[in-house]
């Protein structure tokens, strides 16, 4: 095999579920697995089951474009994403798993004067928050990523970019497997092909989950079901302000290295990196209609190619090898919900939209804290469900609506 690291000899076992656990995590994606890991590691809570309806980490964890960055505008977002980035920086050692974390930097391009204002604003905000950030002119963009077309003659010229050098990519599957293996080694049960069909509530308190493998009682039920969050929560009578959309991505064939960093453009609607093996990994904007099916519409891919060639003429003769879609859960303010629900013992982690992967260790850390203490960690406290009642939104639409 090529470009594949030495995986550990053993990953995880496949136990049958017990009748009861202290904590049941619904959703065996990156967030669910990271949460289980930190529950065991930071809080010593190991009577935990992670229930996954399909194969472990086969949802958005397997479908994202693996970009990791923390250069978010608002203090609340920067807090949790920067915490995540710091964890990423030590994660390979922590998990003892080769996750191919590559801090190759990310460029967020600006194509209009308003883009420039927004970008400069974000750079200044990042610096105040201790997040590494630079504003670069077109020539500096070209130095970091020589294949970006910075000609002033294109339809939407590159007027500059923000640059976060510590940002980068990692191999999504290995991240999930690293968390899964470490969590399983500490006694967490990872149960695949086990769909949660209902959440049982009595007297305002969560009792159990109904699954395709039977009823499983739980002291705490922690939802981490991404695009299906609102469906699962509804079975407990909890309405989440979440809309679910398909989000498509694609890869090219393997190519010799041409693209040394990560480039994102909201205005031209594309983000792209070149993965370790050599394939170009690209994503675009979400499909606009609501859907729970993991498939999108083809014209989105066509538009994405047009955008990609505007920025990277060198990609013209590359080929699309494979396209796919995840389904993303989007809240009204494009920020996540991590915390309590009106049902005692039922917690929710959802609404990460297109940005969940990069938060994986950070949200796992904070969600585990919330489960262990029954109260949110200061970093996820702003991301309460209540904010949609009080109005204390963390509106990332302006800063990151399209390309997370």
């Amino acid at each position, binding site marked *: 095999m090529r470009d594949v690291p030495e995986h550990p000899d053993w*990953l995880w076992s496949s136990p049958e579920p017990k009748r009861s656990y202290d904590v049941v995590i619904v959703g065996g994606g990156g967030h669910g697995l990271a949460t289980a890991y930190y529950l065991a590691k930071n809080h010593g809570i190991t009577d935990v089951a992670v229930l996954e309806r399909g194969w472990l980490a086969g949802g958005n964890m397997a479908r994202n474009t693996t970009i990791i960055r923390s250069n978010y505008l608002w*203090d609340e977002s920067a807090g949790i994403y920067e915490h995540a980035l710091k964890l990423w920086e030590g994660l390979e050692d922590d998990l003892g798993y080769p996750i191919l974390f590559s801090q190759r930097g990310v460029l967020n391009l600006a194509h209009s004067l308003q883009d420039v204002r927004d970008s400069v604003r974000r750079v200044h905000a990042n610096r105040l928050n201790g997040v590494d950030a630079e504003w670069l002119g077109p020539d500096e963009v070209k130095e970091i990523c020589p294949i970006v077309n910075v000609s002033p003659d294109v339809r939407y010229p590159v007027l500059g970019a923000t640059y976060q050098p510590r940002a980068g990519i990692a191999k999504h599957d290995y991240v999930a497997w690293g968390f899964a293996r470490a969590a399983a080694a500490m006694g967490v049960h990872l149960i695949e092909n086990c769909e949660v069909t209902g959440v049982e509530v009595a007297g305002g308190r969560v009792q159990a989950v109904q699954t395709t493998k039977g009823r499983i009682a739980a002291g705490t039920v922690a939802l981490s079901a991404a695009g299906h969050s609102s469906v699962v929560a509804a079975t407990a009578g909890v309405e989440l302000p979440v809309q679910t959309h398909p989000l498509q991505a694609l890869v090219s064939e393997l*190519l*010799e290295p041409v693209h040394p960093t990560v480039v994102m453009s909201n205005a031209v609607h594309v983000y792209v990196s070149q993965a370790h093996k050599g394939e170009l990994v690209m994503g675009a904007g979400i499909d606009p209609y609501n859907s729970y099916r993991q*498939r999108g519409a*083809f014209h989105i891919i*066509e538009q994405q190619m047009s955008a990609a060639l505007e920025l990277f003429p060198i990609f013209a003769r*590359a080929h699309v090898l494979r396209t796919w879609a995840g389904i993303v859960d989007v809240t009204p303010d494009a920020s996540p919900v991590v915390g309590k629900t009106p049902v005692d013992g039922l917690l929710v982690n959802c609404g990460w939209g297109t940005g969940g992967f990069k938060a994986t260790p950070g949200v796992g850390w904070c969600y585990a804290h919330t489960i262990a203490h029954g109260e949110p960690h200061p970093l996820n406290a702003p991301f309460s469900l209540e904010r949609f009642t009080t109005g*204390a939104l963390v*509106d990332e639409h302006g800063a990151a609506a399209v390309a997370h």
Partner: protein
Amino acid sequence: MTSRRMTGWQGETVRFRFDGRDYEGVRGDTLASALLANGVRTVAASPALGRPRGIYAAWTEEPNALVQVAAEPMLQATTVELRDGLDAHGLSGRGRLTDETDTARYDAVHAHCDVLVVGAGPAGLAAATVAAETGARVIIADDRPIAGGSLPDTAETVGGVAGAEWAAATLDALDGRPDIRVLRRTSVFGYYDDNYLVAVERRGEHAHSRERVWRIRARRVVLATGAHERPIAFAGNDRPGVMLAGSARAYANRHGVLPGDRAVVFTTNDSAYAAARDLAAAGVEIAAIVDTRATPSRGGDGVEILTGHVVTAVGGDDGVSSVTVSPSDGGAGREIEADLLLVSGGWSPLVHLFSQSGGDLRHDDGIGSFVPASARQAVEVAGAARGVFTLAGCLEDGAAAGARAAEAAGFRVEGTFEVPRTPDEDPAAPAEHLWLVPGADYSTHFVDLQRDVTVADVMRATGAGLRSVEHVKRYTTAGTAHDQGKLSGVLTSAVVGHALGLPLGDLGTTTFRAPYVPVGFATLAGRHRGALHDPVRTTSLHEWHVAYGAPFENVGQWKRPWYYPRAGEDMETAVLRECGAVRESVGAMDASTLGKIDVQGPDAAEFLDRIYTNMMSTLKVGAIRYGVMCRPDGMVFDDGTVIRLADDRFLVTTTTGNAAAVLDWMEEWLQTEWPGLRVYCTSVTEHWATVALAGPGSRDVLAGLAPGLAVDAASFPFMTWRDTEVAGLAARVCRISFSGELAYEINVNAWDGLALWEAVMGTGVVTPYGTETMHVLRAEKGYPIVGQDTDGTVTPADLGMDWVVSKKKPDFIGKRSFARADTSRPDRKHLVGLLPADPGRLLPEGAHLVETSTLPEPPVPTLGHVTSSYRSAVLGSTFALALVSGGRDRMGEVLYVPLGGEQVPVTVTSHILYDPEGARRDG
């Protein structure tokens, strides 16, 4: 004629280069067949292990023979049509992008049909012929240069003539019919919802467009996509000279090429016997047929048949030189000298498109393959694509599918399709379903040749606890290569099944995803590149702005003149001059890009009352009102003026960038929430050209141009409009101002825009100004720009515009949010003005404000940020607008802007810095 070409094979000579050496092939060759004809066995080394690899298959399923052709990476030698001057290089699993500009053109076509037939093999041709007879509009798409599917490979006869000949004639006959479209060299690669399929047509390097995408919407689809021969995993199965039996047969029959001199055939089924027969007839010596089955179904035409045997080793470092065969149940092996090893593990229906369409697959234990089960869309599957493997069967099945499809599309089948005569076929003996030859060590039993994945790798994955084929795929990378696992995908599942002791049917396949074959980025981008990437919108005055040397600003899709530099002026000087002209005399700006939406209907006033925060129903005909619209969260979404044209008709003005979003917004509410309102919204942005005339001299200029209009302040008050003639043109003049000066907006038919502008300029007293001057002037007056001074988190109250939020209206979008705790926090960010202590210091837009004169360690709480920042002649200073926490309670406070190690002091002021009394509005 080249050395391995069959004697007597005719063809026009084609010269090409491969890896720097010159060769000759014949017209009709693929690069692969031409290489084989020249005795080239090795195309490139494998990527990870560096093992030599040759040509394994004959069409898009090829896993090995990847080449770079000029600037195009990763093409399969088996699908590249040979042409004069072709210059190719073998690739080790990874291609190269070059800086060479792609000057080729790419197109897209929309097509609709009653029946789309995918594949022009026997089943597809029969289906298309039957469907065409009913009068249905039929499209038949086939990815090969010549028709017939497997017929040219097998050389079987149909209707007494060579199959390829029958196919060509049948397709030509279809091509001649008016409602039938034949797409050759066209790969259908995606099957989306509502029978929307996409295909790529390869038209050639010198065609009008090199490739084009077909976007096809079909009432019914017939998938006649054929089958792939299955590989078998055994030791050394990657050596050059190991080839699928059916592919070798294709090289002999289709291309007249002998891929070797002496062959061993390794099979689990009958089909390889026909391959052996054809190759023997072509001149290849068949050393032995190794059949895994105990009882062969037929004789070997004099060839030795080793039943119950398997291949256990392949000798030859650079390519097959010998084949070791052993009894299946163990026992001594025997080495047979050969330079070619033909493999057949049976045939798997090509279910990719069916699976993409949402259809379910089931495992057919009889043929050992996954086959289409229940369909989710209007689709039929015919022939080998659903496991029918005889020629006569495919013809019959295709005809039946074509009839079903046409009938389902509403056409009547009259008469019966006469299935052409085909040679009698012996009934096939049951095949054995063998995927894997047991071995002591599985390190050269290859599963995915391109990714260098072996059975040992798969077993390592299952040994690590993995149970899902998706996990094994990701762990080993099997099936992720350029061929997307066409041959390796199910083989991997089978090996996983072997390792876990599970039947293949329980494991299933990994997901089949579009595109079925790789498709070029440029192909998909089509014409939408360069200037056509996104439409450029220009106003009817654009040429004038260009002629006057204005640089342009992109605002949404629009090009807006930014400023008009005179000789020797930089931007700063030009803008200060333009500002001075408006404040002291008169200037004109092209305001045509502002969005305009005609809102009419009996409920138009009620509708606008709900959309805007302020009251619109009380507006009198002839009057104008400024309005703000919010999202349900109470945050400002857009603003602009509304003019009332009649009781039931308004003209709504939006910001330039938001025009489409506002129209979408209105339609969303009308269509989903308030379907009872009788209101019609129409975009009229481009019907009008608008010239803003601003400055104390504007009244005189207007009076001169519009002698029929009473322009005095009493006759034509602020926030009213008049229909009149300006410069002899029918015009609507609005008295509104975005600069604080006396000002008018003159609207004329877009066709008349340039005439109006030239008339205004012809007065000789009017200075043209651009968007930058407009921004400065409005900022001096404290008028916010939505999207610049707001960011979706700003309420009207935050902007100091409490007055624009109606207290009387029962409801409007956003109203409920104004009652939320967070919208009344005293520390919300307010729009304020900032004056730097140093009047020459221009603050960067986007810079933040902090409370302290020294910067503490992060995280440092920000108080807000600078939204707009300019130099001002009338203020004699730079100034800025900012959103500042509790800003209205901070008037006079000194705050600090951290800039590269420096803390720049600024004083908080009102956001209205110029003419706060509004004295200049009436001139």
